């Protein structure tokens, strides 16, 4: 609820809205408007009523643990490693939130993630400029979303089955058109130039050659720049949370996910709402695929990697507080869920955990953190059972 009626901040201010005409006996006492800032209790209520509240707490605890125990965690060099790692999950999670609010799931983002960079490569190498090539690849992802929506909303196949089929089909299609071979990402190549730099050694001026790497502006924007993916992630999360909380798109998405028949009776065009959210979700998969291909400068037909990033994306949404059952969810939560996964992965790596143990520890840590998350949620709601 909190995420729909203003992401929480609207929660505490309602009593102010009710005029004197309302029955005064049963309503909570009206808060005075005198103070410029809301009282400490109001802020406390606001923060606690955020769906994302408990995962924020859990993430802060994990980050503090690594900051105290690993000297290299809280360094700018590490942040540069951490940031590109979690940003893709956040973007995928943000798209997935919309489909999950509907009570559906989209596994095909692993497929669009894999296919989109190859489409981009094909179109760009056929001679089109880079940005239009990206747009064409993303349009193809939208078509995939449209097909998902068609099979789920109109034919009536479950979204799990539909998008699982689409995942396999798209991954297979990628293998077919790529012949299983990686290719260099267009526009993402690193150009090394050598400059003679003057140094002063023992009072003597010496010219020494140094290599400087350059990437194009296109590459810097689309994933190659250090903060590029982070900026994309933040931008997408802000835009999509706004769409979810403050527009009809979000309102109808929640309505359909919460009560499909009721929404239809009220006049909401249920199929249209489902279609457009599947389109949105599939597109985020394609965008992340292209960003990652530009960042690594190669397009890889790596189906296992695509499946892994798909699950990290869904996990980010779920960890962030979006219900698999539908009806409610939060995009900001998906960002924090992704950050949590990123910190955990990064922190464990820095602690020198053996690569073979990493996934095992990661799995255990997710379950422990989610257990804590549930208890924090119950505590703030003031009752003992979920």
């Amino acid at each position, binding site marked *: *609820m909190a995420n*729909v*009626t*203003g992401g929480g901040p*609207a*929660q505490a201010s*309602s*009593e102010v*809205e*009710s*005029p004197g*005409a*309302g*029955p005064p006996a*049963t*309503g*909570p006492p009206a808060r005075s408007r005198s103070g410029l800032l809301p009282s400490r209790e109001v802020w406390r209520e606001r923060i606690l009523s955020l769906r994302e509240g408990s995962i924020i707490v859990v993430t802060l605890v994990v980050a503090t643990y690594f900051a105290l125990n690993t000297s290299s965690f809280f360094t700018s060099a590490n942040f540069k490693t951490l940031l590109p790692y979690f940003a893709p999950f956040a973007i995928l999670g943000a798209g997935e939130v919309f489909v999950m609010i509907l009570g559906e799931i989209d596994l095909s983002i692993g497929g669009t993630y894999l296919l989109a960079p190859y489409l981009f490569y094909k179109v760009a190498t056929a001679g089109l400029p880079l940005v239009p090539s990206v747009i064409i690849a993303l349009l193809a992802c939208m078509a995939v979303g449209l097909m998902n929506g068609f099979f789920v909303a109109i034919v009536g196949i479950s979204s799990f089955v539909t998008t699982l089929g689409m995942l396999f089909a798209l991954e297979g299609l990628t293998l077919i058109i790529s012949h299983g071979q990686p290719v260099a990402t267009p526009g993402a190549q690193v150009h090394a130039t050598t400059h003679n730099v003057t140094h002063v050694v023992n009072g003597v001026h010496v010219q020494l050659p140094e290599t400087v790497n350059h990437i194009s502006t296109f590459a810097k924007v689309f994933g190659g720049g250090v903060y590029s993916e982070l900026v994309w992630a933040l931008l997408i999360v802000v835009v999509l949370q*706004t769409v979810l909380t*403050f*527009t*009809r*798109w979000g*309102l109808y998405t*929640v*309505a359909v*996910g*919460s*009560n499909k*028949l*009721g*929404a*239809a*009776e*009220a*006049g*909401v*065009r249920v199929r249209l709402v489902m279609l457009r959210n599947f389109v949105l979700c599939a597109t985020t998969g394609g965008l992340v695929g292209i960003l990652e291909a530009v960042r690594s400068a190669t397009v890889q037909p790596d189906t296992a990697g695509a499946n892994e990033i798909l699950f990290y994306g869904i996990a980010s949404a779920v960890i962030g507080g979006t219900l698999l059952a539908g*009806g*409610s969810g939060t995009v900001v939560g998906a960002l924090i869920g992704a950050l949590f996964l990123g910190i955990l992965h990064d922190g464990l790596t820095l602690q020198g955990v053996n690569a073979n143990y990493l996934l095992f520890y990661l799995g255990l840590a997710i379950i422990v953190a989610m257990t804590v998350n549930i208890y924090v949620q119950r505590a703030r709601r003031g009752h003992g059972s979920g």
Partner: protein
Amino acid sequence: MEPSRAPDDVLRVEHIAKRFGPVTALRDVSLHLRKGEVLGLLGDNGAGKSTLIKILSGFQRQDAGEMFLHGRPYAPKSVDEARAQGIDTVYQDLALIDELSVYHNMFLRRERVHRPLPFLANREMKHEARRALDEIGINIPRIDVAVARLSGGQRQAIAVARTVNGDADILLLDEPLAAMGAKEGSMILDLVARLKEEGRVSIVMILHNYVHVLEACDRVSMIQDGAIALDKPTAETSVEELTEIVVNEYRRARAAAHS
């Protein structure tokens, strides 16, 4: 039974039939609604009342028969289209969204936005919703909570308030008192009486309690076995007569089943 054709009929329904696979919900239903009138629609469970309401509201389409709104052919393709022509409905299941706030529910599909921007005008909707609920006199302490947290009667009141607050001139109420206590129920009946006095809207209302029917309605139409079995002004009928029709039908059906 051919409905009498008065010039002030706002809504006329002629020979409507609707089947769901092997089940015939409506065989041949004809009825009419005059301007400013409150028509009580009666009938046993499964008689087809709700199906008729859903056809009138544009949610489903009839297999046969015609409808006329203000004398012109009326064939809504959607709930939105029916609403645009002035027909709005309180469904039996209330069509409320549990996860949305009271005021978002009240404005569902009629949201106010900050034109030309697409953002919801929540403050305006809150004020408007509060005003509408106060007008009915239903006690909803907070209108920014999810409707899931409200009682059955409060939910029902919100569904009724939502429909009444629109600018429809024909209201279809499918069991508006179903989940209500005596006090809340009489509030809704008071509201219906007030609307009748104002004379702006005409109402078709499904009710189960015959005392309520005689109190609130100008006329009753009873659906039995997918067709209209009785159509009388309430002044000319009684609880006894209405009960007898239903009981006779039940006895006949049982006798038929035993023979």
